[in-house]
């Protein structure tokens, strides 16, 4: 790096810090008792020192002074990369699956709980991936289908005592129907109009769940939902439920993988890249877009039914707009249209708030900051899909 470049970097860093001070001080320093500076400068001091240390580190690294660490590290990772390249795919997948199966045997309750959340979100993320990643339809109300699935199982279990395994496909079907209902009027819209309409539908579903006392018991939620059973044996331990959702997640991954490389998957990608061209090539865009909504919703329905069975309680709080936004964040952060990407995105966004539990009050502050930072570092996602063109709707 030239001196000039480095000078410029430090200058912009300094300007940024002064800007930060200007923004921070009025929030902390102006009180009816008078103006106060101590608190502001304390906070500012921490941030400034942190930024300067990071900058120094960056400079040193740029100057190549850290090569003694970087080079061997790089060599190792290249080596591992080579091993990864030559190992057959099925061995790698087998290792991952074996780890996933062995996981509950070596860990405790809390880890089981978090890993169950991760697997639920993998189902949700992959489902949304069909809508957003493959078909290129921005959906901000996706969590509604999750809610429909959860309430379907909750009500079936409560009123008819139906078993989980019977309700799982029913929940998928009801969610798919909901997907079609929501999908139909939105088919004419594009881009951000689609975003607000799906957001509106998501909110409508949540409000109905919260207000229709006769059906959903409103804000009180539904209690006493049955646990899944296998041959009359109740799965009442967390690690047993872990295997149930692991099964559902593996099924979802396989299904989405097969869809991805099928005629339908190609057609979805064609729609994403250029809808007009796809239509001219004979792709039935109307039906396929509806199918994308229905398929995406189905997986959310499965996840929802499991969620209800796992919590044994459903309430409208679980299906807010923020949840939709989080699932979307997982898909985009991981890499739209890519299955391993979505899984990594889920791991990152479910695990992070749990890791940050120690920060207590600062938990969500750090989380928000890290989310923006990750987007800045890898705008295309952690593991981007290979087949995304420049003409896709989202790329503008």
């Amino acid at each position, binding site marked *: 790096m030239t001196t000039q470049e480095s000078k410029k970097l430090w200058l912009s860093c300094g300007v940024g810090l002064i800007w930060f001070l200007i923004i921070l001080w009025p929030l902390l320093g102006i009180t009816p008792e008078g103006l106060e500076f101590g608190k502001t400068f304390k906070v500012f001091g921490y941030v400034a020192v942190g930024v300067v240390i990071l900058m120094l580190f960056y400079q040193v690294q740029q100057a190549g002074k850290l090569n003694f660490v970087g080079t061997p590290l*790089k060599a190792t*990772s*290249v080596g*591992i*990369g080579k091993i*990864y390249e030559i190992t057959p795919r099925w061995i790698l997948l087998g290792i991952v699956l074996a780890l996933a199966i062995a996981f509950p045997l*070596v*860990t*405790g*309750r*809390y*880890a*089981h*709980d*978090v890993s169950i*959340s991760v697997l639920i979100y993998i189902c949700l993320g992959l489902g949304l991936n069909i809508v957003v990643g493959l078909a290129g339809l921005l959906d901000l109300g996706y969590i509604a289908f999750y809610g429909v699935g959860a309430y379907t199982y909750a009500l079936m279990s409560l009123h008819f005592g139906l078993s989980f395994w019977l309700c799982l496909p029913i929940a998928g079907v009801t969610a798919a129907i909901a997907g079609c209902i929501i999908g139909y009027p939105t088919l004419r819209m594009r881009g951000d109009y689609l975003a607000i309409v799906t957001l509106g539908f998501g909110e409508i579903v949540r*409000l109905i769940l*919260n*207000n229709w006392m006769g059906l959903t018991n*409103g*804000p*009180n*939620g539904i*209690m006493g939902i049955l646990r899944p059973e296998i041959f009359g044996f109740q799965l009442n331990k*967390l690690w047993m439920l872990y295997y149930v959702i692991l099964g559902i997640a593996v099924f979802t991954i396989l299904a989405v993988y097969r869809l991805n490389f099928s005629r339908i998957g190609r057609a979805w990608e064609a729609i994403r890249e250029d809808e007009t061209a796809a239509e001219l090539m004979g792709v039935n865009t109307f039906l396929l877009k509806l199918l994308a909504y229905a398929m995406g919703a189905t997986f959310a329905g499965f996840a929802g039914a499991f*969620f209800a069975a796992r*919590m*044994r*309680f*459903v*309430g409208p*709080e*679980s299906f807010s707009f923020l949840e939709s936004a989080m699932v979307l964040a997982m898909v985009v952060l991981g890499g739209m249209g890519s299955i391993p990407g979505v899984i*990594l995105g889920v*791991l*990152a966004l479910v*695990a992070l*708030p*749990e*890791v940050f*539990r120690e920060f*207590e*009050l600062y*938990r*969500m502050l750090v989380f928000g900051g890290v989310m923006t930072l990750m987007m800045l570092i890898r705008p295309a996602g*952690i*593991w981007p899909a290979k087949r995304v063109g420049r003409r896709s709707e989202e790329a503008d």
Partner: protein
Amino acid sequence: MKRLLALIAALAVMTLVLTGCGEEEKAGKVLRIGTMSPLTGPYAADGNDIRQGAEIAVEVMKEQGGVEGYTDIQLFSQDTACDPKQAVAAANKLINEKVTAVVGAYCSSSTIPSSETLAEENIVMLTPASTSPQVTERGLPYMFRTCGRDDHQAPAAVKFMKDVADVKTLFIVDDKTTYSQGLADGVSIAAKAAGIEVLEHDHVNQGDKDYSAVLTKVKAANPDMFYISLQNSATGALMVIQARRMGINATFMGQDAVYHPNLIEIGKNAAEGMFCTFGAIDKDAPAFKNFLSKYKAIANNEPGAYSAYSFDSTMAYMLAVKAAGSTDPAKVRAELMKLDFVGASKNVVYDEKGDSGSNYTVYQIKDGKFVPYWNSLTGDKY
């Protein structure tokens, strides 16, 4: 490729941290108590009250010599964000921390699923805020509730309307939460039974700031009393300010959730004259005085409804452990059943279901203070 592998490695490390083998056991026995409440999100104010209430209880207990047999009392605070999923994760995290009791949670939708998780490990749970009858109706042996039940508070409020305030017509508004709606429904039913005409029972949504449409209805209906059942004091303040500005002349009445100094601080003149139901407190009792002075010193704020309940929950548990001489849940339960102490919110006595008695008193806001006005048990004015 390189970055990906680094990332996978980082995630693997993260998982290891997550599954972390817990802390090493320290020398001597430590009484570990967990709290669960929304520390982030829209209900952070109430969640903060709950956490502080528990902290103060531990402080007070330590000052009084702590619990015999334990070298220290430690508090572990977890965030639920009023989200059932996060609440269960928090409960599991607390189990990992080897707590023997949990004070929380705030939203009933968090308390119910997390109580089932805690029940699997026989951990005592005392909720300071979830008033849904279902919380203690499920037959969980270690579930206790220090706040009142919706179905106790409503009759007390209606008795006041009928006997003291001489209300003929009533307008009820709630904001569609388990708590606020359950209570409002109870008031509506009890009022009808008592011969008070319920002109209308309307709802607003959480997150709303503008109540003008509903308040216009209130004004047109012109009731004797306007019963406000809202989730917390902030929304309560919004409601009274807008109602007074619109020129509604009815008497206002709220419940224990809006019993918070912030209602007066924000509502100012608009809150003047409003009635609230809240537990009867013996303000001269040492426990209460201790609580109040400590709270002001540590939290730099006046205590709200939930901080008082949380203080009492934590205190009740520590007293029970003290009496039982161990944290064995069965013994602690037996001691909790025997407990009878004057807390910061009321006289705490737990019954078979785990509910604590409700002795609601009606307070009136007068000159910027909550002043006791009428006792529902004795039926006397102060």
